[in-house]
């Protein structure tokens, strides 16, 4: 939602200012001080009405934005702690959505690891028995086996084929299930896309609100730069080593180390 407010409010005020100013000059030069006073009153009124118009636009735009995100308006929400409406805003939905992503990814990771942990002993046992049978088989091939040993081998092979059958079935089943578990990416992806859209909307709305507020400021004559710069300065004194989580834009930054090898190089170059 972009605001329809245009610069015409400012322009028309400037126009009025100019007209009034030249008329004022005229009156002063003609010693008509009463008229000149009246002009000053008119000038103030022009300024005031422009301010009211801009603030009106700002308020309307703010209302629109809040309506779009379904946040129940002001005092009503505060007085109804825990009411159904309070929990319905889109922003609230976004938080729940992200909680859902956390839960889903954790569960998928846990289930996948469970299935892999089931597979490991199966593989181990099959492998060990195969090694041992291989040695017996070699003896058989070299005709170094007694009839008793052969009977034992015969039984072992029988059992082994059963185990192999069951084992490989279980492995295949688990591997398929692991693939299926990755389906979380679809569900979480959908939620994340929604949240990204919402955040982008919020950003767009805030930018246009800022623009309208800027017009109010220029009409009223507030120097906002001074205030915002002070705010920025105090933010930057935060620790440079504060945690930031995983770096996903490391190619755009010069202070991030992007591989274990580079970490190791940095540490050894410092003597650690």
């Amino acid at each position, binding site marked *: 939602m972009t605001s329809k407010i245009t610069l015409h409010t400012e322009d028309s005020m400037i126009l009025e200012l100019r007209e009034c100013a030249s008329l004022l000059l005229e009156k002063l030069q003609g010693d008509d001080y009463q008229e000149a006073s009246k002009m000053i009153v008119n000038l103030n009124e022009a300024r005031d009405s422009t301010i009211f118009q801009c603030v009106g636009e700002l308020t309307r735009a703010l209302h629109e934005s809040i309506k779009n995100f379904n946040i129940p308006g002001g005092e009503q929400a505060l007085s109804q702690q825990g009411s159904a409406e309070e929990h319905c805003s889109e922003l609230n939905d976004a938080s729940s959505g992200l909680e859902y992503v956390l839960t889903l990814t954790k569960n998928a990771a846990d289930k996948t690891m469970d299935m892999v942990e089931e597979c490991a002993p199966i593989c181990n046992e099959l492998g060990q028995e195969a090694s041992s049978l291989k040695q017996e088989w070699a003896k058989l091939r070299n005709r170094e086996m007694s009839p008793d040993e052969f009977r034992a081998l015969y039984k072992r092979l029988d059992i082994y084929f059963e185990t192999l059958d069951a084992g490989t079935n279980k492995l295949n089943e688990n591997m398929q299930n692991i693939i299926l578990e990755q389906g979380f990416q679809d569900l979480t992806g959908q939620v994340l896309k929604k949240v990204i859209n919402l955040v982008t909307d919020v950003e767009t709305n805030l930018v246009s609100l800022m623009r309208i507020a800027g017009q109010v400021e220029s009409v009223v004559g507030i120097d906002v730069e001074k205030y915002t710069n002070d705010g920025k300065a105090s933010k930057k004194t935060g620790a440079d080593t504060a945690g930031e989580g995983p770096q996903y834009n490391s190619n755009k930054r010069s202070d991030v180390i992007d591989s274990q090898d580079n*970490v190791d190089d940095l540490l050894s170059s410092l003597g650690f």
Partner: protein
Amino acid sequence: MKILIVDDFSTMRRIIKNLLRDLGFTNTQEADDGLTALPMLKNGDFDFLVTDWNMPGMTGIDLLKQVRADERISSMPILMVTAEAKRDQIVEAAQAGVNGYVIKPFTAAALKEKIEKIFERV
């Protein structure tokens, strides 16, 4: 060898526990924050600490500093396993006395190499 694994994500604790087990280290315990880990370390005769950086209560870097500041446990070998990879952070950890620094995502080989290196020196 008794090892404490500290990370606020249970999935990561499980991964590290499994990798340690594959390397033969089966005596492991877990904590989900520096705050819960510190008393465990002070009272529990652990021989090795593996910790993340970013944790809500007490960060890994603060945990590292606290351990180094306590006489009884100050010489404990400490490995950081973390997504934090800014130059300043790595330097700060090294200066605070960390024995190894592994960045996420990591391979089993990388983790193994760092652990072996730490115990070579000790």
